[in-house]
């Protein structure tokens, strides 16, 4: 699943570690999310969108033929 996490993180001037701390995950999880290698659960997607004060669909881009969630 594609997302705008890297761009939003830069806009909010947050490091990967800071974003990880905000949502309570490991930094490796943020790296995997930004690389599009992992599709988050709904609760994590909501937590991330709340950090950037945006709706979930503005952060994550659903793909019809998505197979990147491992």
């Amino acid at each position, binding site marked *: 699943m594609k997302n705008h996490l890297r761009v939003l993180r830069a806009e909010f001037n947050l490091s990967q570690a800071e974003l990880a701390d905000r949502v*309570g995950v*490991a930094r*490796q999880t943020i790296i995997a999310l930004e690389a599009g290698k992992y599709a988050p659960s709904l609760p994590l997607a909501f937590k991330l969108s709340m950090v950037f004060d945006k709706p979930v669909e503005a952060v994550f881009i659903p793909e019809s033929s998505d197979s990147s969630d491992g």
Partner: protein
Amino acid sequence: MEETINPTRQAVHRYFWEFGVSICAYVVVIALSRNYYNDVPIQCKALLALLPVIPVGFVFAAIVRFILSTDELQRRIIVNSLALAGGATALLAITYGLLEGDILPPPSAWWTYVTFMASWLIAGLCVRRHYQ
């Protein structure tokens, strides 16, 4: 910026602490068990030999607690690698079992443990790499 406590980082700290203490306890118990093994009556030998299982149980509990308290991707990596390691160990056990007897000698039970842990390590590295 509001200070937050990252539950995943806390889980890692707690895991290393619990794992470390349990391993130290294991080393102490196994040393005591081996030291007094010849001094106890025959009825107590099995009990003394099995005493190190208690700290190993604490290691197991630390691993389970870590899996339950870490974040969703780390949990997925651990569970996937455990599944792969279990499958690889079973495959090797079946292969060896078919050759055991005339061709190969009966293995020590320790080999199952060593094979599983080695498979878990290799599978863990492969699964982690998949998400990088």
